[in-house]
């Protein structure tokens, strides 16, 4: 694996690990982190989170990563673990570039 790809994936893995930690420790998802699939739906079926969990997830994720989610991207950003990680990574990049 080339170094640039390795660095990109390593960064993503770190964000994934912290998002899963939030899901298990703050939202009490009853699965071990390894069993939380990256493209699983967070709400409805999938992990079965509800609207109260959504608020908790937003607050915990913003606090953990030092970012603020724009309201207009939340609907897509909160669909899956992967889409949430996409959002965090993009916002961190925007913050670093500012």
């Amino acid at each position: 694996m080339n170094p640039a790809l390795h660095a990109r994936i390593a960064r993503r893995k770190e964000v994934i690990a912290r998002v899963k930690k939030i899901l298990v420790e703050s939202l009490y998802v009853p699965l071990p982190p390894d069993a939380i699939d990256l493209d699983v739906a967070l709400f409805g079926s999938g992990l079965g989170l509800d609207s109260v969990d959504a608020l908790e997830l937003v607050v915990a994720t913003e606090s953990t990563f030092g970012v603020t989610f724009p309201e207009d991207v939340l609907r897509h950003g909160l669909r899956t673990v992967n889409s949430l990680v996409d959002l965090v990574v993009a916002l961190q990049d925007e913050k670093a570039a500012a």
Partner: protein
Amino acid sequence: MTLASRLHALGAVWGLSGGVATPRRFTSIEAEMAAIRGSIGLSALPHVACLRVEGDGAYDALDRVCPAPMHVRNGTMRHTLLLDEDGIPLVDLYLCNDDDAYLLLAEGLPSVTLIAYLEERFAALAPDAAASVSIRDLGETHALLSLDGPFAWELLAALEGPELVGFPYLSFYHPSPERTYLRAGKTGEFGYHLLVPHAEAGPLWDRLLDAGRPFEIAPVGFDAIDHAMLESWFFSNDHEGALGLSPIELGLQWRLAADKDFVGSEALRARRAAGVTERIAAITSDGPIAAGDPLLSGDEPIGTVLRAARSVTRGDHVAIGLLDVDHAHSGIDSYTALHAGAVVPVRTVSAPFVNNRSLAVNPQRHAFARRAEIAFPPLRPAPRGR
């Protein structure tokens, strides 16, 4: 005139799903997808095995077989699987608690084969409970219709009453003792399965088509539903489910209880202990790719395309890839596929592939007739997190 004769009269092309003949297409996949994504698609689903498991031992017997936790509230359902002893999915299952009996809606096996699977495993794993369990094949007496689309709720509410608007996802009710309406579906849009006696199925089909005309309803075959499933990242028994992969590689661990034994649990524990080496990832490309194409990072082989199609909704190509776990991450645009001797750039993305219109539709405020007022997001998600 039966439901089947109505489907034939509409020009249905039939084909197999899970070994059972089902209407696969009426017009074109483009027209049928337009109904599913923009208005309402009406389908008949004879390939879905519908069973009623009841008796004093039903809970215990199913608990030993089914991978999902059994605490499902009355009137609600859980999306799970049935596995073989090697931990490989056989059936994509809705498990519904119907007043301590269980309604099973299953795709992947004919009902006769599914009943044999259950009876054998009940007898082997829960012999005491099995003695007081009966399994009824509802396919002998009932037909399953489905409404899928961002305005499916509005048509059903017009026919059955406005209380349907608040009907939660993964719940069901009986509008009469012999009918069951379930809020389910795998297209990513509002979906309702209507399980009704055979004698009522044909007239109901006609009523839905008549009342659905102002909503631009269209009959849709399983090819369109199956395509919508791919776009919305729903597991397909006919495609990736037929490749001998376990729920670990398929990203379906959320359908399994973490703390109980079930058919296949021992094999899954062994697979985890040996180390997971591959998992599926969502892929898009501007050029065509196909199942079986190798995936590469530079010159390094990193996986294989399991399923691919040109997305009717997006216009580009979407695929499920099986990648080694180190490379199976979203947001990478440097991989390629080798397709028919040509190198095709691909991107890993976060599933699902589309922004379903139903996510922007609020049944309390919106209506099909005023759909131009709804601020729909682009159907194709904007990439983030590169």
